[in-house]
């Protein structure tokens, strides 16, 4: 009997068997993977499981299986049909989508502007986008309360231009929420979009123009496909957290604009109905995973990196 030859692979100068590679992975990647698995991935599964349990009389989790939480989420509560939660879900999705659109409208000019700057100025312009990105979101959000206060110059300017009523504050309300969202998420869109815009091959656009395409068509057919990977990555980075955002609607939206995030917080906090909160969370997660799948599909078609591979 001949033993099969041991297979080696040379990796960065080291001769390693398959077992050797696994052992080294266990030592290097193992602790971090274990940490994130135990403290986040398993608990996420736990949340999913909690969502089919019931709330006990004292707000504890009682191990009685039920689909009642999802029924209630779909609008079928004890008191007949109540669209409160479907409306909240829809409103959150709209806020996520709306924020993405607003960020796209603002992000495209900014990304093309930065990419068109000469070397050193470009670095400065990029850094200037990154700094607000790392500045506390809570602070930047409450700052809009100051900026949109009844006696601020922005409010007076809006009133003078006839955009708002005299003496009326611009917050709380949807307008303030969208301003806060744009301010918070614009960098998330600009940074990945910029990495694609920087790599545009302009000779394709010139060829399209030479062949008689007008401006919008050049953009649509010769420029846009080239920036799709970065654009999609940015859209996902905006859409997912924007849909789950709760600080911005909480501080700028007032009581009438409850979003998914606020609804979750309420169930885990004041209402103490964790199973129902878990059901809302789980629906939120489904939105996240759905978004990631869409991104992967679109990015693969565009020839860009997959969601996970681009970063990790």
């Amino acid at each position: 009997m001949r033993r099969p030859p041991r297979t080696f692979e040379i990796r960065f100068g080291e001769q390693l068997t398959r077992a050797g590679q696994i052992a080294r992975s266990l030592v290097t990647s193992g602790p971090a993977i274990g940490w994130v698995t135990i403290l986040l991935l398993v608990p996420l599964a736990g949340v999913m499981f909690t969502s089919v349990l019931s709330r006990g009389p004292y707000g504890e989790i009682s191990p009685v299986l039920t689909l009642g939480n999802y029924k209630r989420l779909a609008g079928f509560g004890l008191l007949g049909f109540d669209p409160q939660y479907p409306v909240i879900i829809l409103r959150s999705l709209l806020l996520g989508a709306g924020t993405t659109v607003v960020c796209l409208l603002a992000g495209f000019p900014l990304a093309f502007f930065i990419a068109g700057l000469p070397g050193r100025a470009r670095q400065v312009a990029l850094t200037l986008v990154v700094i607000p990105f790392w500045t506390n979101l809570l602070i930047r959000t409450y700052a809009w309360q100051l900026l949109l206060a009844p006696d601020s110059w922005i409010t007076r300017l809006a009133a003078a231009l006839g955009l708002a009523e005299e003496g009326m504050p611009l917050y709380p309300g949807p307008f303030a929420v969208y301003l806060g969202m744009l301010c918070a998420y614009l960098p998330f869109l600009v940074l990945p979009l910029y990495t694609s815009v920087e790599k545009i091959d302009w000779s394709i656009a010139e060829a399209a123009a030479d062949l008689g395409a007008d401006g919008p068509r050049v953009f649509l057919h010769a420029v846009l496909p080239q920036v799709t990977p970065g654009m999609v990555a940015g859209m996902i980075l905006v859409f997912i957290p924007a849909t789950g955002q709760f600080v911005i609607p909480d501080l700028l939206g007032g009581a009438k604009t409850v979003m998914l995030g606020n609804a979750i917080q309420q169930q885990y906090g004041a209402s103490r109905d964790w199973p129902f909160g878990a059901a809302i969370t789980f629906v939120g997660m489904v939105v996240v995973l759905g978004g990631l799948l869409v991104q992967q599909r679109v990015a693969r078609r565009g020839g860009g990196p997959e969601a996970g591979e681009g970063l990790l």
Partner: protein
Amino acid sequence: MRRASWPLWLASGLLYAFLYAPIVVVIVFSFNAARHGGPWRGFTWQWYATLLDNAEKLAAARNTLVLGTISTAVSTVLGTMLGYGLSRYDFPGKRLFAFLMYIPVVIPDIVMAVAMLTFYSLARQWLGLFELGMTTMVLAHVTFQIPFVAIVVRSRMVGMDPSIEEAAHDLGASSWQAFTRVTLPLILPAVVAGALLAFTLSLDDFVVSFFTTGPGASTLPILIYASVKRGVTPDINALSSLIILASVIGAVVPMLLQRTSRSRGEP
């Protein structure tokens, strides 16, 4: 690349103004002598001075720094090992795990927060572990910091010239020697950048801390949130300005670090 036209300059200028308006207004108001926002009533250091007399705010500041320092130290070590391991060795299911490690980056922070809260309270119920407070916050922060450190380290590893490590092994270095003497010094700028990023994330975090903290362990963002709900006071502006300063340092220093290492001709 084409030169920007004037409408693009105008639009971009307005967008930069928009991005910086909230930051500027907080800093300006922190020096405003007026008690209730509004018009400018002269320059004052008063609000910074009152911070120093406020035991609650000082305790929150100390908590924030302790939380940031410990969680950054742990996550930098684990994240660097992860970034190194993922870029050097293969194991079954690596693609899946690399994808799963990406989850904390993209998931809404409220989802992460309730998952951890559920975990802690079940662990407390069944095992008597994890009283909510500083420890649970540190564990939670490390969890979302690890992937960011790993991303920064791994992107540096990918751009590295493999022949340097190969040379180390050819000359008889063990794996550990090759890592500590050759690889680690080369990726050190990325490790430092990752650590600063992790620290900034910890400093910025409100939602996860809010859910995983217990009585008595308040951080600055939690304190600011509570104050904002009651109505912004000038000393909160002063406190926020100090946090902004710390974040700006945390954002600019890694960029300078990466630039100096690049200009030295390293990959």
